C-alpha cells in the first residue's frame, strides 16, 4: 500500500482511460502523456495499461508500506528514495517503509509513477482514471490517501535497466493535420497558425492547453452544430486563440476545429508548461 504524504500541486491516478463510451458523453480520460505511462509500466513488468500516478509539476511524497519496484517517466523530475537519488526511466527498488520524494521537473509538466503490480483503486466504467471534467474515477490525491498495490505474482521479470528517452524540446514544434473545419477559417488562418509562435496560458489543464497568440480569423459566422471531438483537436472559440484538447476533453463541442495534432505530437502537448512557447508545423 502507498500512503500519500503530500500530493504536490496535482496528482491523479491514471491508466489508459475509458475509450468506447463517448456516445454516452464519457470523456476518454487516461494518462495525458500516454506513451510515458506505457513506458513506465513496461519498465516494471506491468501491462502497459496498468494504473499509475500522474504528477503535475512533481512535488509529491509517497510512503511505501510494502517493498515495491517503481519507475518514473515523463517530465524529468529529481527522485529520491529515503534520500537516495534514483534515475528516471529506470526500475528502482523501494524498501518497505521508504519515503519516495519528487522534486520539481526541470522541463515538461507531467511525470508518471508506475509501481509493479499497478495501483488498484476501484474501477469506474472499466477504468481507474480520474477524469477532472466529468468527475468520474477517484478524486485527485490528497494527503493521507492510501493506494493499494496489485498482485505481482503473475508478472514477467523486470528485464530493462534503463530506457533512454530524448529530452523535451525547449520550444516544441507540434505537427498538425488541417481540418475537419479548416474551411470555417480565413485563408491565411492556417498560415498564421504555422508561422506564429504561441504561448501556453496558465489556465491550461487536463481538459485542454489554452494558448495566447495571434487570433485565427473566421471566414464564416454562425454556429457549428455540436460534433464529436478527438484528443489533439485545436478548437477555436470566438476569441480566435486555439485550445488543444487533452485527455479529459468533452466528447462533443460546438466550436470549429481548424486542425488536429498528429497523434505522435499529443504527448508533447501534454508536457507543455504554462508560459512556455510552442509552434505548429503542417
Amino acid at each position, binding site marked *: 500500500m502507498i500512503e500519500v504524504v503530500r500530493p504536490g500541486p496535482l496528482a491523479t491516478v491514471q491508466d489508459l482511460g475509458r475509450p468506447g463510451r*463517448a456516445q454516452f458523453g464519457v470523456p*476518454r480520460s487516461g494518462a495525458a502523456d500516454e506513451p510515458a505511462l506505457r513506458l513506465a509500466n513496461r519498465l516494471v513488468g506491468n501491462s502497459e495499461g496498468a494504473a499509475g500516478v500522474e504528477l503535475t509539476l512533481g512535488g509529491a511524497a509517497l510512503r511505501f508500506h510494502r517493498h515495491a519496484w517503481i519507475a518514473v517517466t515523463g517530465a524529468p523530475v529529481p527522485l529520491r528514495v529515503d534520500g537516495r537519488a534514483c534515475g528516471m526511466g529506470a526500475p528502482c527498488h523501494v524498501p518497505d517503509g521508504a519515503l519516495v520524494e519528487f522534486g520539481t521537473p526541470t522541463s515538461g509538466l507531467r511525470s508518471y509513477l508506475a509501481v509493479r503490480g499497478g495501483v488498484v483503486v476501484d474501477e469506474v466504467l472499466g477504468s481507474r482514471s480520474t477524469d477532472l471534467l466529468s468527475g468520474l474515477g477517484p478524486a485527485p490525491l490528497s494527503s493521507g490517501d492510501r493506494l493499494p498495490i496489485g498482485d505481482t505474482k503473475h508478472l514477467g521479470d523486470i528485464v530493462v535497466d534503463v530506457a533512454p528517452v530524448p529530452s523535451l524540446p525547449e520550444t516544441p514544434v507540434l505537427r498538425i493535420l488541417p481540418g475537419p473545419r479548416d474551411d470555417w477559417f480565413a485563408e491565411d488562418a492556417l498560415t498564421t497558425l504555422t508561422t506564429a509562435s504561441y504561448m501556453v496560458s496558465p489556465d491550461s489543464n487536463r481538459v485542454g492547453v489554452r494558448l495566447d497568440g495571434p487570433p485565427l480569423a473566421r471566414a464564416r459566422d454562425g454556429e457549428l452544430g*455540436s460534433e464529436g471531438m478527438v484528443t489533439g483537436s485545436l478548437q477555436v472559440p470566438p476569441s480566435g486563440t486555439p485550445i488543444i484538447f487533452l485527455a479529459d476533453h468533452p466528447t462533443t*463541442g460546438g466550436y470549429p476545429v481548424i486542425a488536429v495534432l498528429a497523434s505522435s505530437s499529443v504527448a508533447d502537448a501534454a508536457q507543455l508548461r504554462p508560459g512556455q512557447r510552442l509552434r505548429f508545423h503542417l
Partner: protein
Amino acid sequence: MRVLRAGDTALLVEADDLATAHRLNTALRDEPIPGVVDVVVGEQTVLVILDPSADLDLLAARLPRLRLPESAGGDTEPVEIPVVYDGADLDEVADDTGLSREEVVHRHAAAEYTVAYLGFSPGFGYLTGLDPRLHVARRASPRTSVPAGSVAIAGPYAAVYPSRSPGGWRLLGRTGLRLWDVTRDPPSLLRPGTRVRFVPEGSS
C-alpha cells in the same frame, strides 16, 4: 454524405440529417468494423475514432458505401420520464413565451422527443422535438449548481441533468428517474436515437 479527416486516427462523417447520422451510428454498432474504438454522434455528424494501427483511407472509402438500416432502431417503446413540474424557471418561461404555466407544462409533456446526441456531461442527452413555442434562450448567467434530475429546456432542445453540474438551461421541473448510474451497464438510460416522453407526475 461527406467524410472529413479529424487528425490521423479519426473521420468525421457529415450526414444529410440527424436521422441519417443515427442510422450510420446504428450500422457501425450492429456490425462493428475492426479497429473502430469509438463512434460519437453529433448534431448532424458521426465521428469515427480508430485504433492508431487501423487504415484510415480504407475506412474513409468504405463508410459512404456502408449499407444503412431502414431505421435507427427507434421501434422500441419510448422511455417515459415522470416529471414534477415545479421548476424554478417555469414562470420566466411562461413570461417569455406568452403562455400560461399550465400551457408550458402541457406543451412540454405533449411532445415526443428523440435523443439527438449526448454531450456536456456523461448521460446528458440533447432531445429534439421540443414544441417551437418553447424555444427560449438559456439563462444570461448559468447556475453554478443544478441538481441531478432537473428537467430543462434551452434553444430547440430539452434535457434532463443526469448529475449535479453547473448549467444555464431553464428549469421546468424534476424527475426521480436515474438517467445516469455508473454501476449500471450501460450507465446511461439515453443513447442517440432513444425516444423519450415526459409524463406529468401527480397534480399537487
